[in-house]
């Protein structure tokens, strides 16, 4: 992909606009990416940015919640607003013919969401219920516990949905100042698809009439911060399986060490030829689902291995996972493993540009993080200069002390804990 397929301009008020033409069956995908997100939730108000995001689609400017939903749904468009750790994103997918009418709404939602008290009550209640329902999923429980081990009460220490006790009392008083700050840390509007010329004009006109002030994106890296206490957490649940998550907090997307870590993630967890899939599933039949979670973050990125296995095999699975982790620290990838990892990483690039939505997501993230627009190409070029020794050195820098979260029935937890206590990567004797 050539990065110059994108054209950028600045709208009145300072909002950066990036556009890309792409033949698609008459549709447009748009992302308004606003720096911040749940990592900016004020102390004691965890969940505030997700709540704010939900309210964006519940009325703005002259439109109340019902009128806004009518406008969007009568045109058959899909609209959603969500906070993640680093940003608040409003996404729209619509027919090309409707884009000029709907796109100005995105900016209006960010700048002039109504925050009507009765809509706050609805959205808050929905988020509280979702938090409660998430507790049905053992993966969610296990991940929450590991998140706390890795990030404590720091900016990445909570689910963007928040914490029930802190979400419950949130009102307009707390949300309005957060809304007023939106855009100050940077924002970008990204459009991809069959774009008619009037899209840009409509946005230009709307911003000229009533500008939403937004700074150029490119927020500074979120600093590294300490984790919680301990390296092992056990959650007893009456389930058949034990969920295991083993992980560390690493480095930001723009950091030079992030690419080697990404290549390790590809080697370990991407596809059915990946190391963990072959070792845990194909060779041992220990798990159905096994993988490595490594999202794109502007701060300390989690690097988490996950699998779930029957309670009676939890000890064996813990030892096997720790052995694999140890192998990464002690042994460089073989030539064949390194070549495969490179080929898969190269192949992945094409997977990320199959739809207008994927293209818009990627561009919004890069521009939002303040990375060069040819960041992807630079990474692809850099892999040539790396080698297995470089990957091992990065592993030894970032992956030294993994922490383990376990969720499942008591006997499985006990066996896993014994395995952890015996292993030198866990609480076992060190050399």
């Amino acid at each position: 992909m050539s990065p110059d397929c994108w054209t950028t301009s600045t709208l009145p008020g300072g909002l950066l606009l990036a556009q890309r033409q792409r033949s698609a069956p008459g549709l447009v995908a748009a992302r308004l990416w606003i720096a911040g997100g749940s990592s900016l939730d004020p102390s004691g108000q965890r969940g505030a940015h997700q709540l704010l995001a939900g309210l964006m689609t519940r009325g703005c400017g002259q439109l109340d919640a019902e009128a806004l939903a009518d406008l969007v749904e009568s045109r058959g468009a899909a609209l959603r607003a969500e906070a993640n750790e680093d940003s608040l994103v409003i996404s729209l997918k619509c027919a090309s013919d409707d884009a000029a009418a709907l796109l100005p709404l995105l900016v209006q939602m960010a700048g002039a969401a109504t925050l009507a008290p009765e809509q706050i009550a609805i959205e808050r209640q929905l988020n509280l219920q979702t938090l409660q329902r998430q507790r049905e999923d053992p993966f969610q429980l296990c991940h929450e516990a590991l998140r706390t081990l890795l990030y404590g009460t720091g900016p990445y220490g909570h689910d963007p949905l928040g914490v029930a006790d802190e979400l419950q009392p949130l009102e307009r008083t707390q949300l309005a100042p957060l809304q007023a700050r939106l855009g100050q840390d940077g924002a970008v509007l990204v459009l991809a698809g069959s774009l008619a010329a009037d899209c840009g004009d409509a946005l230009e006109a709307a911003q000229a009439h009533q500008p939403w002030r937004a700074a150029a994106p490119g927020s500074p890296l979120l600093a590294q911060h300490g984790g919680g206490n301990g390296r092992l957490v056990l959650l007893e649940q009456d389930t058949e399986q034990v969920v295991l998550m083993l992980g560390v907090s690493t480095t930001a997307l723009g950091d030079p060490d992030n690419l080697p870590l990404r290549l390790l993630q590809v080697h370990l967890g991407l596809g059915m030829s990946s190391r963990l899939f072959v070792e845990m599933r194909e060779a041992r039949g220990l798990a159905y689902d096994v993988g490595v979670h490594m999202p794109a973050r502007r701060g300390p990125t989690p690097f988490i291995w996950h699998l779930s296995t029957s309670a009676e095999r939890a000890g064996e699975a813990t030892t096997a996972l720790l052995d694999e982790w140890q192998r990464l620290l002690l042994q460089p990838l073989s030539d064949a493993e390194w070549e495969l990892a490179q080929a898969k990483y190269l192949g992945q690039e094409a997977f990320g540009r199959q739809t207008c939505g994927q293209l818009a997501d990627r561009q919004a993230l890069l521009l939002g993080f303040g990375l060069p627009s040819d960041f992807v190409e630079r990474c692809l070029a850099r892999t040539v200069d790396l080698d297995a020794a470089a990957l091992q050195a990065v592993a030894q820098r970032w992956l030294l002390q993994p922490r383990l979260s376990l969720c499942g029935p008591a006997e499985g937890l006990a066996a896993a804990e014994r395995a952890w206590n015996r292993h030198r990567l866990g609480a076992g004797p060190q050399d």
Partner: protein
Amino acid sequence: MGLVLASSLSERLLPGLGTVHSWTLPSQAQVVALPLSDAPLVCLDLWCRAGSVFEQADESGMAHFLEHMVFKGSERQQAGAFDLRIEALGGSSNAATGFDDVHYHVLVPPAAAGEACELLLDLVLAPRLNQQDLEMERQVVLEELAQSQDQPDEMALQTLLQLGCGTHPYGHPILGERDQLEAHDAADMRRFQQRLYRAEHCVLALSGPLPSAMLQALLDRLAESPLGRLPTAGHLSTGPGLQLMPGEHRQPFARLEAARLLMAWSLPGAEQREAVAALDLATSLLAEGRRSRLVERLREQLQLVESIDLDLQVLECGSLALLEAVCEPDDLPQVRREIDAVLLGLIDTPPPAAEFERSRRLICNGYRFGLEAAAGIAAVIGNGALWQRPLALHEPLEIMLQLQPEVVQPSFALLAPQRACVLEALPS
């Protein structure tokens, strides 16, 4: 002249998408293709009429177990060799087993399409099915089953289908019953494979950047491929018709945090295209978007539910509409009353035109959005050809745009509360 009209209609409804091509191989297996010049990857998608509905009494879970075993290799390819090669080429592969059919798909860069096609057909149509591999893979399938049993919402849905569908295969879990999974051996699996993976039951769908010379080269090789030489069955398999049993059930589920109201309705099968389109429109009007009837009433106005979804599963033996409302256990009676009132209200009073148009737009756009990538297109044309439906991609849009309110109105009667199988799933 007719052709020109058809293609201009297609161009208007789906701008930029070409025409679907179709070929029948000497074996009677079908190949369909839609080139998509701007796509970065080619999708190869092999569909087969071998879903769980075709399992016999002692074959519970076999369709899905076989889908796993296919990746354990063929005479030509060692276990894992296929994935290794596809991924080294920069691609990926996966598979999915449904009630009616199973499909195996590969996404690869265009230059690798020929090799990937050859490997895929060998892997799926000539699997080795070694007993030792089967023992190991059984562990994986049992772990998959355990993982799904740890999700109480999945258990509740499975229970609803079992209560509603009774002995019909749609009432049985696709993953299978544990005791039967523990008993299957390689010989059982081979019998299942040879019975179902027959030429008339298979369709290969291709989409992505496929210049005509490349497509032709692929086709030339297909005649001699395992697909081109696959034996015929001499008949077309179809499953038994579905008759859902209405009823009311109530059951606690371990680890459930919020209550669920689940409802299932039995509806016309996939081949009744206009009736299914009408139901699509009716279910969208009921529960797609904040202004839909059920979401607006139960979530926005009364704030009784966290979410309410109504999903239309278009199936061959009879479609299913599945409703799920998430609420507090104490609110279940009121949630039921309100849902019943909305459903009955639409039977008595047809919806206004604006609501009708809103749903039509949502569905048409949703369909278009699904045709953006090669994998989405291959799935639609592959599944369509497998079940012998018209190949023109704009055809579903044409039906949707021509639907008149009087054709949609009977759908609301089909979704009457008394026709539903209801399960109240409670936290234990």
